[in-house]
């Protein structure tokens, strides 16, 4: 296990170095962040002074090496707009995104797994057909459409805050998290339901389920104990990767709901050509996915004792 984590950490390091390099090149391709503010041209002297202040007058390889050097001391740089340390921006937004991701994943698992089990156990019944039709529909609709529909119908209704948001008004966290979480969960839940249904059907056909029934166990135990743990194995992978993605920031959904998470931060940073923020958020997303997939692998070995971590 220790060896396994060590090897995965080494792999993660390589991934992060590669990802940073790519973002660096992308930022460079975006062009000069200080040439203009909105429509107005910035006087060349001021622009040059800004570039020098942020080290953009250095050759690109040197910029990269400097950045990487700082990164390993925990310094993510300063953002171009507000001149605040990027780390502060992350500390403000990451908890919000984590909250959103967790709420979304809980809704996702609850709806997806339940619907999948019902559809598999009551195969070809009305419930099964309903799950299949609704999940196909949900997968077919892009998340942003669901987001816009929710904004149009429910924002400002009851406890849900109005969009566009006014950031001077404080709202309880659950009121602002519910709608975007739901928008994110719907498509994922549809995937999970289908995955769960397929996986459960396959497990229900297996010999050990026949054995469990031949033991005289109740159907509840056969499904809830013997079948569930085996059929969760592929679902866990999907949920793990999906959670990793959500933690890295749901850019579009957070953007639509103007939810103060890393996704919305990135959304604004890209609009403002704010390279230090973009790079930091990307590193954070990569890290989230790497850590989550490590957790998934460990969970895998726990769920299926035949898998050994090596």
């Amino acid at each position, binding site marked *: 296990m220790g060896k396994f984590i060590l090897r995965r950490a080494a792999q993660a390091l390589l991934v992060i170095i590669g990802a940073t390099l790519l973002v660096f090149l992308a930022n460079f391709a975006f062009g000069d962040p200080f040439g203009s503010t909105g429509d107005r041209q910035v006087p060349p002297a001021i622009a040059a002074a800004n570039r020098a202040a942020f080290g953009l007058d250095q050759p690109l390889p040197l910029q990269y090496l400097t950045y990487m050097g700082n990164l390993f001391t925990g310094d993510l740089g300063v953002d171009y707009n507000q001149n605040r340390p990027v780390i502060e921006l992350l500390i403000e937004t990451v908890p919000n995104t984590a909250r959103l991701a967790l709420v979304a994943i809980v809704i996702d698992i609850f709806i997806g797994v339940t619907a999948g089990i019902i559809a598999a156990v009551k195969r070809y019944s009305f419930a099964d057909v309903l799950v299949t039709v609704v999940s196909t529909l949900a997968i077919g609709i892009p998340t942003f459409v669901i987001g816009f529909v929710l904004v149009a119908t429910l924002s400002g209704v009851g406890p849900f805050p109005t969009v566009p948001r006014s950031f001077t008004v404080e709202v309880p966290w659950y009121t602002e998290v519910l709608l975007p979480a739901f928008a994110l969960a719907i498509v994922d839940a549809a995937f999970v339901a289908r995955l769960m249904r397929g996986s459960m059907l396959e497990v229900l056909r297996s010999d050990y389920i026949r*054995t469990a029934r031949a033991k005289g166990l109740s159907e509840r135990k056969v499904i809830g104990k013997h079948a569930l743990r085996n059929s969760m194995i592929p679902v866990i992978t999907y949920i793990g990767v999906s959670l990793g993605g959500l933690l890295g920031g749901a850019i579009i959904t957070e953007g639509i709901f103007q939810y103060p998470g890393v996704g919305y931060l990135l959304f604004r940073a890209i609009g403002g050509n704010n390279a230090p923020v973009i790079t930091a958020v990307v590193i954070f997303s990569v890290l989230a996915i790497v850590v989550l997939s490590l957790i998934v692998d460990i969970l895998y070995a726990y769920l299926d004792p*035949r898998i050994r971590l090596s």
Partner: protein
Amino acid sequence: MTDMTKTRTVGQEDVLRATNGDRGAPLLEVRDLRVHFETGGGIVKAVDGVSWQVREGETLAIVGESGSGKSVSAMTILGLVPSPPAVFPTGQVLLRGKSLLEMSEKQQRKLRGNEIAMIFQDPLTALNPVFKVGDQIAEMVRSHQSVGRAAANKKAVDLLGEVGIPNPRARALQYPHEYSGGMRQRAMIAMALANDPQVLLADEPTTALDVTVQAQIMQLLVDLQESRNTAIVLITHDLGLVASHADRIAVMYAGRIVETGTTTQIFSSPRHAYTYGLLSSLARMDHARPERLEPIQGQPPSLSNVPSGCAFHPRCAFVTEECRTDVPQLIPLTVGSDHQHACVHPDRVAEAHATPRPPALKAVTPAHVDVPPVVEVARLVKHFPIKSGVFIRRTVGAVQAVDGIDLDIEPGTTLSLVGESGCGKSTAARAILRLHEPTSGTVRLGEHDVTALKPAELRKAREDMQIVFQDPYASLNPRMTIRQILSEKYELLGGGKLTDTTISDLLDTVGLSAEYADRYPHEFSGGQRQRVGIARAIALNPKFVVLDEPVSALDVSIQAQILNLLEKLQADFGLTYLFIAHDLSVVRHISDRVAVMYLGRIVELADRDDLFERPQHPYTQALISAVPIPDPEVERVRERIVLTGDVPNPANPPSGCRFRTRCWKHLELSEPDKRRCIDIEPTLDVTRESRRHTVACHFAGERQVLRG
């Protein structure tokens, strides 16, 4: 006409009433059971009017090929056939007179695993991989007895000990994948016995296991049956197993029982053409001059389209017009006899059974002695490295799958390589063909040194050396037609000429109609696919063909067809075979010479009759003694050497003689002799009796294990 039908269709009920009056009430009784499945393709009559019964302490065997309905009837007893799609038009299942099928699901559940328990064919898949073995057994205890967790766990450990699992306390905490195949089946049996059931349904309990392990498991079942007086319903296709372990037999075909009687009656005087067909298509290990196999033609019918009249009539050698119209009912052989058959021509079957069969081709062709061999294998080694390490993968050991074997095969003969699974026989075959690159050693085929060929030359040489695989379902590309599969050979290897008639001639040679050429593999039955596999192997007139368990995935009646085909092809084209098998009956039938392998080494090598009649190595003797012979008279007097334990890990074989850890003879030796086995590795030496018989044992000696 009406009169005739009337006399023949005495109801099964009447017969049962007449014949069973004097033997006490049956424990479990099935009466006129029908299980039909309503599918898109019509009604599948999986079980169609089956009646049988079993008493305390008795073993009833239900024998049939795949698709005969034998498993479905057992699953119905447990209430495990889902309905829909199944319907039960008629039938009763009575356990001590209580009717099972009319019970509520809850009441049925109380019986399942409690009064009626079941063990299944494949112990690997029948245990839940994610729960500990001990917990799975304890769960069985707790679902029918009101005991606490600790008491149930203790009971699980006791049961594991009772079924012969060494160190049961530690083993109970392991997962199924940490058990060997035989141990898994023992664990299944422990689970089945947890609540002292009255009836044990055993569905092909040893089919997935080696013969040596099969002998262990069957011995265990016999012992447990004696101590607990359990009734066993043994569902199997293996007539050998039935001969030694059943009291009574019911033979099923296409969802019906076609013959039933005591084991002796069925084997000594079969009266149904199908029973007779099964018996005469079986290869027998104990026959000095093996008889020619008489396969049943064709294949078992689809249960959605059962032939009219007697379902067996399209394949029957005795068929007459009556067989096509009326469904024959089970009738007693003589009034009051419990030997019953459903055949129109019992007398003709009896006559055929009494007629001696002609000897097999192999038994009449002279042995090829003192001809230079066409295949020479010398010191062949195949090791698979074991790697370890965090960043840099180092080789830390090797699985010694094949560890220095020598074989010579004379032209036009068959050499069989036998042994338990994991002994390295398949790896050896693949290394000989260089499908696995050998670690060291040489293989000569005719004038070629196969091991020294460059890749391009090797491809060319493949014309001369071909292979037929075990699983005809997995070894044909499902997206290619038979014509594409066969003509690919000519295109890829460039040998031979592909003319308009090549493919049809080839199909004709293996007994398939030329019009099948443009069909896809899934349109064929297992036996037909294996014929395609053979056609592919012989397409370019090879010298040498490796047959890797070519019949072990096939039904008994189909096995004989394929074996006869292989013999005929060898006679016609002078093919040289390396036959890989675990079924010694088949090996005795088809081989000229036999090599016995254990843990990567050959322990004994001899001409066929020499090996079976005068085996010298304790392992060969154990192997032969473990194979059941389909003849209850022989089985009654035979001695069975039951080997303990499993094959050791080939990455870490025992010192000295590799077999010593399981050897029955080793246990009987004096201390200094034992040391010899532990310290000195025996070499393969010529025996005193024959220079063509070699054995690797310090204490080799004959022991009669074939007939008793």
